[in-house]
């Protein structure tokens, strides 16, 4: 398992290839990449996090996913700091023996990262900044698992 929490940009395609190359026996690799969306007035994003807790919380979520779906491996990269529109914010990659487990695990990881990893996004617009509000649907999504 590999977890990177950092300010630096990353290359999702490179990362998924590196990840796949190390997972002998996998039949299925699912990856998710979250990108900074542009809006009419949005010029970027600022992400704050809780150093220490972030790593612990994500490692626990990965451990849980790996065990529950018998994954061969999983990867999480999550950035903080200032990001421009179009840049990757984070990615997960999951390698499983079969497809269904890989899809479920990636979906699970995303649901948990969204509501249980201590990151807070602030949208930077031309007219000012605004904290992204959490959605009730995000919290509700955890009940699926």
């Amino acid at each position, binding site marked *: 398992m590999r977890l990177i929490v950092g300010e630096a940009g990353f290359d999702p395609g490179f990362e998924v290839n590196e990840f796949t190359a190390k997972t002998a026996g996998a039949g299925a690799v699912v990856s998710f990449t979250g990108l900074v969306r542009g809006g009419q007035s949005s010029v970027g994003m600022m992400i*704050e996090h*809780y150093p220490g*807790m972030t790593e612990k919380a994500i490692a626990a979520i990965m451990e849980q996913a790996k065990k529950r779906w018998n994954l061969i491996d999983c990867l999480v990269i999550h950035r903080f700091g200032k990001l421009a529109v179009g840049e990757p914010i*984070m990615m997960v990659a999951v390698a499983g023996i079969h497809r269904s487990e890989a899809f479920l695990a990636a979906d699970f990881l*995303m649901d948990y990262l*969204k509501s*249980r*990893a*201590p*990151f807070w996004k602030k949208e930077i617009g031309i007219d000012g900044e605004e904290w992204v509000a959490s959605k009730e649907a995000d919290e509700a999504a955890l009940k699926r698992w």
Partner: protein
Amino acid sequence: MIDVLYFAWVRERIGLPRETVDSSAETVTDLISELIAREERYALAFSDLASLRVALDQELSSFDAPLKGVREVAFFPPMTGG
């Protein structure tokens, strides 16, 4: 002595990211009451507990949790990662 950390808009309202507090509060709620009594900006930050979350020693917790043995308390809004 307990380290109290603030993130996102909680940090902005209180005006600092962390502070060390000399408190004998027994629960998170007690600690919040002490902070609110201090200054208006705390009262503002803690005015709606439903929109806040708390972590004790980096584990999500509840407001009625005891503080005995806890070294680090963090207050923040619901997370928006991913």
